[in-house]
C-alpha cells in the first residue's frame, strides 16, 4: 500500500512560489492599468449638497471623475442585500457611490480614474463636496435610544428583531433557587488582513468579456453580481481570486462598491482598471465586526446546574446591513456552547449606527456568544463558591447525547443539531494541559513573590461547513498530471496542499502529480465561498467525491483493458493493477488515453486510443451509453446541515499590581475538528486564531469618537500585536469524526479565535477579583476598574497587592 497522505503534516505546495516572491496578488497585476482613487466622506452623517469636480478633471493624468449622477441603470441602484431574512424588516444597503447622504466616515462619494494612483489621489484633493452635516449615531446605547435616526426614511434605528425560545423559560426562572442578572459588552474589531482589498478588471472588446481579479473570499458570487449589475451574461464575466494576502472574513463581503465600479469602468473605457485600497481606507471602508451589548439573566440550582438562560442583546451592524442577520443569528445559536440549557430564550435587535458596516470577521458572532456563556458560568461558580471547571463539568452535554438538537435555527436556515463531540474529554484534557488543578499552588508561589496571576477558561462549539454546497472537479491528463479545481478561494489556509492530499489518497496517485486550482470561475463556475470554516469540509468532501467518481471510471476502463473485474482492481501510485497480481497492470496515464477515443492522435501514447488501434468491441459505440470521454469527474457535496467542531481554551495571565499591564504566561488549547487532514496546517490555523483572539482581547478596538470619526485608522494607532505580544499556545487534539460527511471532518479555520476573549477575561477576573464584563481590556481599562472597584479583593478573599 502507498502511505496515506490524509493525516500527514505534508509541506505546503503554495510555499515555493510565495517564498520566492513569485506569488500573484491583485496589486501585482496591471502595471499599465488605469488607477482608481476615491473621495470618501470625512463626516459620519451628512446630506450631500453639492459636488464640484471641475478642478479635479484638469489634474494631469486624470481620465474621468464620476459621481453617483454619472452611474447608469443597476450600477446606480443600492447594492444587493446578500442574505434576506423575514425578520430583517428594514434592510438598507449602500450605493456604489453615495447618492444623497453619507452614513459613515469613509463612504465613497466620488471615483477618480487616472493614469496612476498618484495622479488619481492628486485629483481627489481637488474635488469639493459640500455637506450639510447631520448628527452622528455612535454606540449601541445611542442607536437604541433612537433620538437620532441613521436612515432618513426610518423612524428608529432597528433593522431587525428576532426571538428564539426553547423550553419553558419563565417557568424555569420561577422555580430557580438562584437568579443572576448582568450586562456584558464586547467592542468592535476588524479582520485587518495585511493585504487589503483590491480589484483589477480588463474588458476584452473582441471577446466582449470582462476578466476580473479580486481579493475576495467569494469569486463565483462576485461574478454573478458583476454580470447582473453591470449587465452582461454570466458567461462573459470571469472572476479570479489569485493569491490573497489574508481574508479573515472581511473579504466574504461582496460585491464591494469597488468590485462593481472597477469592472464597469473597465468596460466603459475598454481598458484595464485597478483599485487597491490603502491602509487608511481599509480601516475606514472595509467592514468591521463584534460590537454587541448583552443583557443576561440566568437561573440555576444549588449545584450550579443551569435551569434557564435569558439573553437580550443589541447588535451594532453599522451604517448598512448587506450581509443580513447572519452575525446576530450565529451569536444567538452558538451562545449555548457545550452546555445543556433546559430553557433558553434569546432575543436581539440589529441596530444602525453611523459607523462602518459590520459583516463577519473570523469567529463571526461566536466570540460574543461564547463570552456571554462563559462569563455566565463563571458568575454562577462565584455565586456558589464552586470551582469554575466543576460548574462547567456539571452542565456539559454528554457524549451519549449526540445528535444533540438545540431546538434553534442556525445561520444556514437549518436546525442547529450537534452531530458529534466529546465535551467532558475536552475539559479533562484542558485541565491537565494548563495545570488547572495545581493552580492554587502556582498562585501561592507567585503571591509570595509579590506577583498577581490568574487562570481562566473558555469552551465553545462552532458550527462549521455550512451549505448550501461546494463542488470539485478532478481530471487525469494523459501525461499523468491530475488537475483539480474547486470554486471557493484561498486566503492562505493551504487548500492546494490539503486538497491534493485528499485526491492523492482517494485516487491512488502520487501527491506530487496533483495540481489544484481554487477560486477561478474559468475552472469551476459553481461555488459559494470561503467562510464559516467550511473550505475543507465542503470542497474537501466534494473533491473526494469527484476523485471517487474518477477512480470508478478508471477501474471500469482498466478492467476492460486488463480483461478483469473492476472490483478486483486497485490503484497504487498511479498504476491500476489486479489485486494480488501486480504484473497485470496498466498505468493511469494509459487509462486516461483510453478514456477518450480518438480519431486524431496528438502524441505517441495517444496513438493507442485512435480508431484502428483501440481494443474495443465493434458492436458497441466507442463511448458507451452513460459514459463521457475523458478521465474526469465532478462531485458536489451538499450537507443536510452544518457539522459542529468544539474546543476548550485556558489562559494563565499576570497583571502588574502597579501599572495594570496584562501579560499572558501560558495559553492552552484543546481542539476537536474531527479527522485531521494535515496537523501542521491545522496547528498553524490555531496559532493564528489564538493570536487574533489575544489581539481582540487585549489590544485591538475601533476607537470611534462621538462624532463618528475613527481615531485609530492606522497601524500606528490600531494595536495589531507583534511577536512580542503573542504567546505560543500549548495544543492538544481529540478527534470525534463527523458522521455527516464522507471524510468525517469539521472546520478549523476560525476555532482559534473564538473563546480567547472569554478565557482571558476569566483569567483577569481571577487575578484581580473584579468583574470583567467588558472586552477588550487595556491596562488603562483595568486601572480604571481597580479604581472604581475601590478594592482589590480576590474571590479567594485575599487582598491583592495594591
Amino acid at each position, binding site marked *: 500500500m502507498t502511505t496515506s497522505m490524509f493525516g500527514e503534516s505534508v*509541506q*505546503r505546495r*503554495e*510555499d*515555493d512560489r*510565495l*517564498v*520566492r*516572491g*513569485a*506569488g*500573484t*496578488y491583485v*496589486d*501585482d497585476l496591471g*502595471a499599465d492599468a488605469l488607477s482608481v482613487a476615491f473621495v470618501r466622506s470625512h463626516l459620519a452623517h451628512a446630506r450631500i449638497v453639492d459636488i464640484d469636480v471641475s478642478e479635479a478633471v484638469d*489634474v*494631469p*493624468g486624470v481620465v474621468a471623475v464620476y459621481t453617483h449622477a454619472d452611474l447608469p441603470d443597476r450600477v446606480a441602484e443600492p447594492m444587493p442585500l446578500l442574505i434576506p431574512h423575514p425578520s430583517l424588516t428594514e434592510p438598507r444597503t449602500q450605493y456604489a457611490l453615495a447618492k444623497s447622504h453619507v452614513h459613515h466616515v469613509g463612504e465613497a462619494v466620488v471615483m477618480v480614474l487616472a*493614469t*496612476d494612483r*498618484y*495622479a488619481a489621489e*492628486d485629483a481627489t484633493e481637488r474635488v469639493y463636496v459640500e455637506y450639510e452635516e447631520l448628527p452622528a449615531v455612535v454606540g449601541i446605547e445611542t442607536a437604541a435610544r433612537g433620538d437620532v435616526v441613521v436612515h432618513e426614511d426610518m423612524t428608529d434605528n432597528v433593522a431587525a428583531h428576532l426571538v428564539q425560545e426553547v423550553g419553558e423559560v419563565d417557568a424555569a426562572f420561577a422555580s430557580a433557587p438562584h437568579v443572576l442578572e448582568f450586562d456584558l459588552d464586547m467592542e468592535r474589531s476588524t479582520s*485587518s*488582513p*495585511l*493585504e487589503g482589498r483590491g480589484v483589477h478588471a480588463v474588458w476584452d472588446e473582441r471577446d466582449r468579456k470582462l476578466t476580473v481579479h479580486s481579493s475576495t473570499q467569494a469569486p463565483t458570487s462576485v461574478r454573478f453580481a458583476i454580470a447582473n449589475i453591470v449587465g452582461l451574461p454570466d458567461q462573459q464575466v470571469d472572476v479570479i481570486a489569485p*493569491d*490573497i*494576502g*489574508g481574508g*479573515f472574513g472581511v473579504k466574504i463581503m461582496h460585491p464591494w462598491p469597488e468590485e462593481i465600479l472597477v469592472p464597469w469602468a473597465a468596460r466603459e473605457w475598454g481598458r484595464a482598471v485597478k483599485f487597491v485600497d*490603502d*491602509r487608511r481606507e481599509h480601516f475606514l471602508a472595509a467592514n468591521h465586526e463584534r460590537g454587541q451589548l448583552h443583557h443576561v439573566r440566568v437561573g440555576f440550582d444549588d449545584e450550579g446546574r443551569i435551569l434557564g438562560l435569558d439573553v437580550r442583546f443589541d447588535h451594532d451592524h453599522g451604517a448598512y446591513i448587506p450581509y443580513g442577520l447572519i452575525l446576530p443569528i450565529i451569536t444567538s445559536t452558538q451562545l449555548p456552547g457545550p452546555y445543556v440549557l433546559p430553557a433558553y430564550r434569546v432575543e436581539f435587535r440589529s441596530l444602525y449606527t453611523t459607523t462602518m458596516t459590520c459583516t463577519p470577521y473570523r469567529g463571526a458572532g461566536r466570540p460574543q456568544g461564547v463570552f456571554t456563556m462563559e462569563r455566565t458560568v463563571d458568575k454562577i461558580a462565584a455565586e456558589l463558591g464552586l470551582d469554575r471547571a466543576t460548574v462547567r463539568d456539571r452542565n456539559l452535554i454528554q457524549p451519549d447525547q449526540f445528535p444533540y438538537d438545540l431546538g434553534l435555527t442556525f445561520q444556514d436556515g437549518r436546525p442547529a443539531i450537534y452531530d458529534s463531540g466529546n465535551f467532558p474529554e475536552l475539559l479533562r484534557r484542558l485541565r491537565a494541559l494548563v495545570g488547572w488543578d495545581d493552580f492554587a499552588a502556582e498562585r501561592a508561589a507567585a503571591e509570595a513573590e509579590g506577583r498577581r496571576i490568574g487562570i481562566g477558561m473558555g469552551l465553545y462549539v462552532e458550527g462549521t461547513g455550512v451549505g448550501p454546497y461546494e463542488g470539485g472537479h478532478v481530471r487525469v491528463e494523459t501525461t499523468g498530471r491530475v488537475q483539480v479545481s474547486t470554486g471557493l478561494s484561498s*486566503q*492562505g*489556509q*493551504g487548500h492546494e496542499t490539503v486538497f491534493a492530499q485528499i485526491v492523492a489518497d482517494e485516487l491512488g496517485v502520487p501527491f506530487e502529480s496533483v495540481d489544484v486550482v481554487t477560486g477561478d470561475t474559468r475552472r469551476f463556475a459553481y461555488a459559494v465561498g470561503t467562510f464559516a470554516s467550511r473550505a475543507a469540509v465542503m470542497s474537501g468532501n466534494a473533491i473526494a467525491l469527484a476523485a471517487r467518481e474518477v477512480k470508478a471510471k478508471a477501474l471500469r476502463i482498466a478492467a476492460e483493458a486488463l480483461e478483469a473485474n473492476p472490483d478486483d482492481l486497485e490503484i497504487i501510485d498511479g498504476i491500476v493493477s489486479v489485486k494480488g497480481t501486480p504484473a497485470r497492470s496498466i498505468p493511469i496515464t494509459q487509462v486516461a488515453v483510453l478514456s477518450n477515443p480518438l480519431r486524431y492522435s496528438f502524441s505517441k501514447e495517444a496513438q493507442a486510443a485512435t480508431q484502428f488501434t483501440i481494443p474495443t468491441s465493434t458492436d458497441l459505440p466507442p463511448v458507451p451509453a452513460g459514459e463521457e470521454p475523458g478521465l474526469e469527474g465532478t462531485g458536489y457535496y451538499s450537507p443536510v446541515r452544518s457539522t459542529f467542531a468544539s474546543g476548550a481554551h485556558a489562559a494563565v495571565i499576570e497583571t502588574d499590581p502597579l501599572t495594570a499591564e496584562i501579560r499572558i504566561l501560558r495559553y492552552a488549547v484543546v481542539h476537536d475538528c474531527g479527522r485531521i487532514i494535515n496537523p*501542521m*496546517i491545522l*496547528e*498553524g490555523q490555531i*496559532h*493564528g*486564531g*489564538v*493570536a*487574533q483572539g489575544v489581539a481582540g482581547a487585549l489590544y485591538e478596538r475601533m476607537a470611534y469618537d462621538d462624532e463618528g470619526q475613527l481615531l485609530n485608522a*492606522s*497601524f*500606528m494607532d490600531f494595536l*495589531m500585536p*507583534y*511577536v*512580542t505580544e*503573542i504567546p*505560543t*499556545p500549548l495544543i492538544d487534539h481529540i478527534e470525534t469524526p463527523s458522521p455527516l460527511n464522507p471524510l468525517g471532518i469539521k472546520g478549523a479555520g476560525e476555532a*482559534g479565535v473564538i473563546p480567547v476573549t472569554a478565557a482571558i477575561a476569566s483569567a483577569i477576573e481571577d487575578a484581580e477579583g473584579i468583574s470583567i464584563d467588558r472586552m477588550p481590556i487595556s491596562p488603562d481599562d483595568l486601572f480604571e476598574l481597580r479604581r472604581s472597584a475601590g478594592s482589590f479583593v480576590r474571590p479567594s478573599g485575599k487582598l491583592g497587592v495594591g
Partner: protein
Amino acid sequence: MSDERTEQVSLVVNGESRIVDVPHRRLLSDALRHDLGLTGTHVGCEHGVCGCCTVLLDGLPVRSCLTFAIACEGSEIETVEGLAGDDGSLHPVQEAFRECHGLQCGFCTPGFLMTAAALLDTTPDPSDEEITEAMAGNLCRCTGYVNIAAAFRRAAELTAAPATEVES
C-alpha cells in the same frame, strides 16, 4: 500621463544595474513593484509599521514604503527575488520558512525573509531574544508568529550547516 518632472535614478537591484525614471515623490516600493516589475516586495500599510515592504538597502533592512526612490541613487538593493541562488535553489531563510510552515497567506513573508536574511548576515547564531528583537518590526496576521520564530531558528541552522548534515 502627468507632466510631473522625473529624474533618472541608477540602482543595483539584486546585483543587476537598473535605471528608473521617477518623479521625486515616487516611493521605492512603487518603483520596485510597478516600474521594475519586482512585485515580490509587498506594501501592507504604506506608513512604515507592518514591515511587508522591507528590502535591504546597502545591506540593511529598510521600509521601502518610507523611502523615496530618488534617494537611492547608486544604492544596492536586495529584494526577495534576489534571495534564491542563480540555479533556483532556495536561500536558507526561504527553505526554513517552507519547512517550518512559517507562512500562510505569504503577504508579509518577503518582509520577514529580508529581515531574517539581514539578521543572519550579522548574527549567524542568534539567541531567541535576538530573533524576537529582529522579528518585532514586522506584522503577520496569519501565523501568530510561532512558526516564523521557528523558521528564523531553522534558518540559522541551515546557514551554519548544509541541510543534509543538520538532518542526519
